[in-house]
Each structure stands twice: as C-alpha cells, then as structure tokens.
C-alpha cells in the first residue's frame, strides 16, 4: 500500500516560473513532512520540512503548504531556475512519495 501519493511524476517549467508538486497521505499519525531534492548519482537531501501544526512554511524560494484536514501538502518553487532541475520527493516520514522529476528550461 502506497503511504504517500505524489503528483505529477514529471514537470517542465520555464525559468522564472512557479513549480508546484502535490502530495497526499492517509495515516493521520504522521507528524513530520519533509521534502527532499535529489540530483543524479546522489542521495536525497533535505530541502524543507513542516509539522502538521503549521499550515505554511517558507524558506527562500521554497514554500510548503499544508492542509491537515485534507491530508494534503504541496511544494511551491518560486522563480524556478535551471539549477532546480532535479527529482523531488515528498515524505510523511519515513515513507516517501514516488518522486517528481522537475526540469526548468532556460
């Protein structure tokens, strides 16, 4: 059973645009929701994380929006840059979503 569902699987955004990735979970016992960024040949690295008592968290160009009642959360990347091109994973720790491959076109 997939604990965390992530969409879309792939995303192409123009430089300067907004990238949006969505995730949903079922188990209300989860209490930590990180987002990881992974570059080819590397392990995932923490990007930003949120706990369910907060509805939004912003760090630089990255924002997590969290809807506890809907059991959904999303990552917004503002002013997307080619260097943001990577695979992004949401998680309801310790379970990961299926990943989103983001490509930012110059």
């Amino acid at each position, binding site marked *: 059973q997939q604990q965390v569902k992530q969409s879309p699987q792939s995303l192409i955004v123009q430089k300067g645009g907004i990238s949006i990735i969505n995730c949903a979970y079922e188990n209300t016992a989860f209490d930590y929701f990180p987002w990881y960024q992974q570059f080819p040949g*590397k*392990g*995932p690295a*923490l990007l930003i*994380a949120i706990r369910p008592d907060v509805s939004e968290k912003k760090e630089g160009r990255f924002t997590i929006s969290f809807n506890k009642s809907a059991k959904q959360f999303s990552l917004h990347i503002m002013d997307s840059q080619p260097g943001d091109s990577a695979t992004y994973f949401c998680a309801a720790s*310790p379970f*990961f979503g299926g990943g989103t491959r983001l490509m930012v076109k110059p």
Partner: protein
Amino acid sequence: DARVTQTPRHKVTEMGQEVTMRCQPILGHNTVFWYRQTMMQGLELLAYFRNRAPLDDSGMPKDRFSAEMPDATLATLKIQPSEPRDSAVYFCASGLVPGGTEAFFGQGTRLTVV
C-alpha cells in the same frame, strides 16, 4: 564532516549470489533506514532501526532479505540469493529521534544482478 557512508558504491553480481551492503550511520544518530530506489517504485522503505532494534521491516521481502545492526556504527543489508529484480540503488539513511527527524542519506549502493 558528518555523513552516512555506504559500501560498496557499486556491485555487480550473478544471480543466486549473496550480496552484503554496509552502512556507517552518522555518529550519535539512533535511527537507521534502508531504502531501495528504482525507476518504477521510487524510494521504497525496506526497514528501519531505532537504537539498533528493528522497528519496521514490512517493506522487505523476508525470504531473501535481511537487515541487521551488529553495533551502533554498522548496519547491514543482505540479499541471499540475489535475483535480477533486486537490481536497484539501495540507500541507507540515519537520523536522530527525538530531537530531529531529518534523515541524512548516504550516496547509495548501485546493485546490478545479472
């Protein structure tokens, strides 16, 4: 520079052989995770330990996979016998719970079973 160390980085083996992957978690971390990454399945949680005790290994095929922590500085994942469908990148991650729940990932072991 604290980091999770995995060995080997690459492993090619023949079907039926035993494979052992090793992980050295970050010193002081009490939680260790094993994940498998494939194109089709994303990052699957295979097992995780807290204070060396297995907490959940429900994601792991029990007939051929085993995970252990002989001591606080070493975690192992064994596959016996290996099969071509086991080909994947296996990641180890460690974290500190409570006090933080971020998982720090190693570089992974790329396993190819031929």
